[in-house]
């Protein structure tokens, strides 16, 4: 029943896509300035059907309808309600349906909200967006149908991998997808702009809100993924430079570059071609990332389900996209004149683009090089954190300084005026760094420089913040918030990276252990039954010998039945100053448990900083709306 409804809705969405493309083409030849109401209606219907089909899938998960293969493979009647719902996008098929929904919704919103009288620009955008929608719908129907049936109907589902049952991970894909897939709209708009000759300022104005939305959501999505890794994977880290993580970071670099370049295009009416390249690149890299993750060619131990036929389809689609984009660009782009002053604001905003492209290239090499090498030379290598720390970290220092100074320089031409105040701020940063040094202890030169430059950026941003509240006109609050967030992010990552206290030892109930300023007592152990798992809970008393603070921590070992899996739940006590992190694992045929303890300073501030970065984007959106 649900299966038929779902498939019908998907097919209707597909037919409407074809119809919209056809109608838009015929409409292009009609000489007037208004878009036919019929097209609006078609797009509205398409959006409604597509959203309904997704709700049908969610309903299948909620009522545990195991006649759907997808529900059978990824759900279980005993699963908590929240995770039943999030199971809808937990699998490849479901997430593809979510992907299509975002494509459709963005095309609808773009059509409704773009106040623009260039008809052919809007129609071309709609046409290309619907080609994308159509491509993914065909993929869904022939290869990854979430509504496939199974007979005989199984009584019970296989269950979702328990490590994926986590609130941060449940919201991670939708957030990331709004960012990833949202970028499709300016991919389509970019090509449309080239063909319809609707360029420069108008184009910048029309795509800016969508760039901001996708950027902000993608920032939040990456953050949610890191939070999941930190709380769930049980190793105490939050970023591992895993290929799958890199795949989400690469489009972020390009969107960030685009967001800055769009400002230049809007204000100064230049670098149009570059903005177009970025528009095309963002979605292309998003799809490339999806290809790498879904096809399984990354050979990562994290990827379980992969299917080469899936990969082949995405690859064909990706090639079509790339060559369409290249052809449109080569055919329609025009030569531009650039006349920037070296010390103008544009140059410094574009400095962001140099850095973003440097970071992008580094991460891309780290991710793709092993694949290329394997094909050419049949050797397998893996590129890990040492590569990224060596290549990326040193460049973070000038990047932070540019972020602090760039916004201070006036449009077009700068007068050297504020040198002295910058000097004071630099001195203040060095002094604060010495304070960190004194408080926590010694660390490497490069970390010192990173911390100094991040404090430099923070002081600058805070100063701008006060100026904003005094004058309310000159400064730009959204930029200040995001830059402040970024400065804080680097500072707190730097501190927690350098000053985490870590220890690993075996204890049995009743024993205690003293080490570097801490004492841990293993008080007791008990067993409890939960809805879909059993858990063994340890009770530990942690005493900080310096401050005499006591805490009780409860790490768990969980035994899930469906599928039968053992997971170790860290007990994490979050305070503003530091997180204490404790995991225990059992050692069989012995009373001892293996205990892993970590004290990680300022962890929560890393998440706060990341959310601050994203909120800058949202603030700018609200500003555009009110204008």
């Amino acid at each position, binding site marked *: 029943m649900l299966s038929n409804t779902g498939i019908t809705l998907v097919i209707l969405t597909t037919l409407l896509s074809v119809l919209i493309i056809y109608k838009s083409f015929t409409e292009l030849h009609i000489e007037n300035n208004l878009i036919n109401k019929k097209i609006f209606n078609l797009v509205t219907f398409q959006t409604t059907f597509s959203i309904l089909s997704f709700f049908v899938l969610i309903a299948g998960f909620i009522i545990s309808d195991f006649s759907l293969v997808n529900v059978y493979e990824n759900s279980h009647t005993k699963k908590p309600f929240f995770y039943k719902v999030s199971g809808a996008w937990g699998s490849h098929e479901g997430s593809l349906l979510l992907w299509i929904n975002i494509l459709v919704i963005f095309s609808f919103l773009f059509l409704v909200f773009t106040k623009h009288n260039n008809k052919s620009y809007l129609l071309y955008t709609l046409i290309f967006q619907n080609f994308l929608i159509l491509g993914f719908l065909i993929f869904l129907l022939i290869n990854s149908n979430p509504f496939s049936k199974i007979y005989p109907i199984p009584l019970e589902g296989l269950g979702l991998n328990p490590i994926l049952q986590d609130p941060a991970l449940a919201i991670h894909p939708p957030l990331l997808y709004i960012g990833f897939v949202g970028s499709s709209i300016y991919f389509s708009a970019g090509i449309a702009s080239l063909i319809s000759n609707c360029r420069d300022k108008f184009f910048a104005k029309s795509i800016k809100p969508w760039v901001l939305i996708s950027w902000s959501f993608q920032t939040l999505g990456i953050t949610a993924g890191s939070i999941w890794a930190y709380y769930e994977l049980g190793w105490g880290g939050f970023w591992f430079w895993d290929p799958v993580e890199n795949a989400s970071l690469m489009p972020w670099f390009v969107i960030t570059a685009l967001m800055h370049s769009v400002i230049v295009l809007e204000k100064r009416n230049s670098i149009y071609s570059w903005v177009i390249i970025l528009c095309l690149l963002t979605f292309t890299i998003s799809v490339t990332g999806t*290809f790498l993750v879904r096809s399984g060619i990354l050979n990562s*131990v994290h990827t379980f389900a992969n299917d080469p036929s899936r*990969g082949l389809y995405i690859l064909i689609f990706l090639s079509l996209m790339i060559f369409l984009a290249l052809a449109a660009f*080569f055919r329609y782009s025009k030569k531009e004149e650039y006349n920037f002053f070296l010390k103008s604001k544009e140059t410094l905003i574009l400095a962001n683009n140099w850095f973003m492209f440097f970071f992008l290239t580094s991460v891309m090499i780290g991710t793709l090089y092993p694949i290329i090498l394997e094909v050419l030379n049949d050797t397998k290598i893996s590129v890990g954190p040492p590569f990224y720390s060596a290549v990326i970290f040193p460049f973070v220092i000038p990047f932070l300084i540019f972020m602090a100074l760039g916004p201070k320089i006036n449009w077009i031409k700068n007068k050297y005026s504020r040198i002295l105040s910058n000097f004071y701020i630099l001195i203040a940063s060095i002094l604060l760094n010495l304070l960190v040094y004194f408080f926590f202890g010694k660390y490497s030169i490069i970390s010192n420089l990173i911390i100094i430059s991040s404090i430099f950026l923070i002081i600058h941003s805070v100063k701008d913040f006060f100026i904003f509240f005094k004058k309310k006109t000159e400064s730009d609050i959204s930029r200040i918030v995001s830059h402040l967030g970024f400065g804080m992010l680097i500072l707190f990552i730097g501190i927690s990276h350098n000053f985490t206290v870590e220890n690993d030892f075996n204890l049995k109930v009743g024993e205690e252990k003293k080490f570097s300023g801490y004492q841990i007592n293993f008080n007791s152990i008990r067993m409890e039954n939960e809805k879909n798992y059993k858990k063994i809970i340890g009770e530990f008393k942690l005493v900080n010998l310096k401050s005499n603070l006591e805490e009780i921590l409860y790490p768990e070992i969980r035994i899930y039945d469906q599928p039968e*899996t053992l997971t*170790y739940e860290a007990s994490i006590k979050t305070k503003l100053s530091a997180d204490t992190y404790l995991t225990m*694992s059992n050692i069989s045929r012995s009373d001892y448990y293996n205990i892993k303890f970590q004290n990680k300073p300022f962890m929560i501030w890393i998440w706060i900083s990341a959310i601050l970065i994203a909120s800058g984007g949202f603030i700018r959106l609200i500003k555009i709306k009110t204008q």
Partner: protein
Amino acid sequence: MKKNLLKIIISVVAIFIIGTFYVSLKKTEIYDTKNLVGTNLDNFELNSLNKKLKINQDLVKKSQYTLINFWASWCAPCRAEHKYLINLKRNAKNLKLIGINFKDEKKNANKFLSEFGDPYHYSAADSKGKVSINFGVYGIPESILVNNDLKIIKKFIGPLNQDEYTSILNLTN
């Protein structure tokens, strides 16, 4: 002229990247475990975890059945399947177990074996994980059941459970 050159360079780079993706996509099919059953084990050679011994296909030929198990000390599900491996060593008569220690440190691996018990007749170390990937390992734990003609009879993805344990016992006894 200059512009044309640029076009050509960009197109070539795009084609190169797509081509690479295509070739590696074809290669991943080799890793597809569905096709592994019924095929013959490729030749391999690994160092023993602790002894001065080469572990290769000749060891497999010596016993009627061999279960090759991929594991690591950092892998939680490996602990869950451990009891079945121990029972297999005890109860399966015609079966030898080879444990391949995947992307692990020797110290941690030995600690694991001394704490939980050593279910393996031979232990091999694959610290970089390369040889295991050639066996078609996606993620660990995984196990491959082979006979003395080096033919792969069964492949188990994920931790072994009671049913799989019984089926191995029935097959080999």
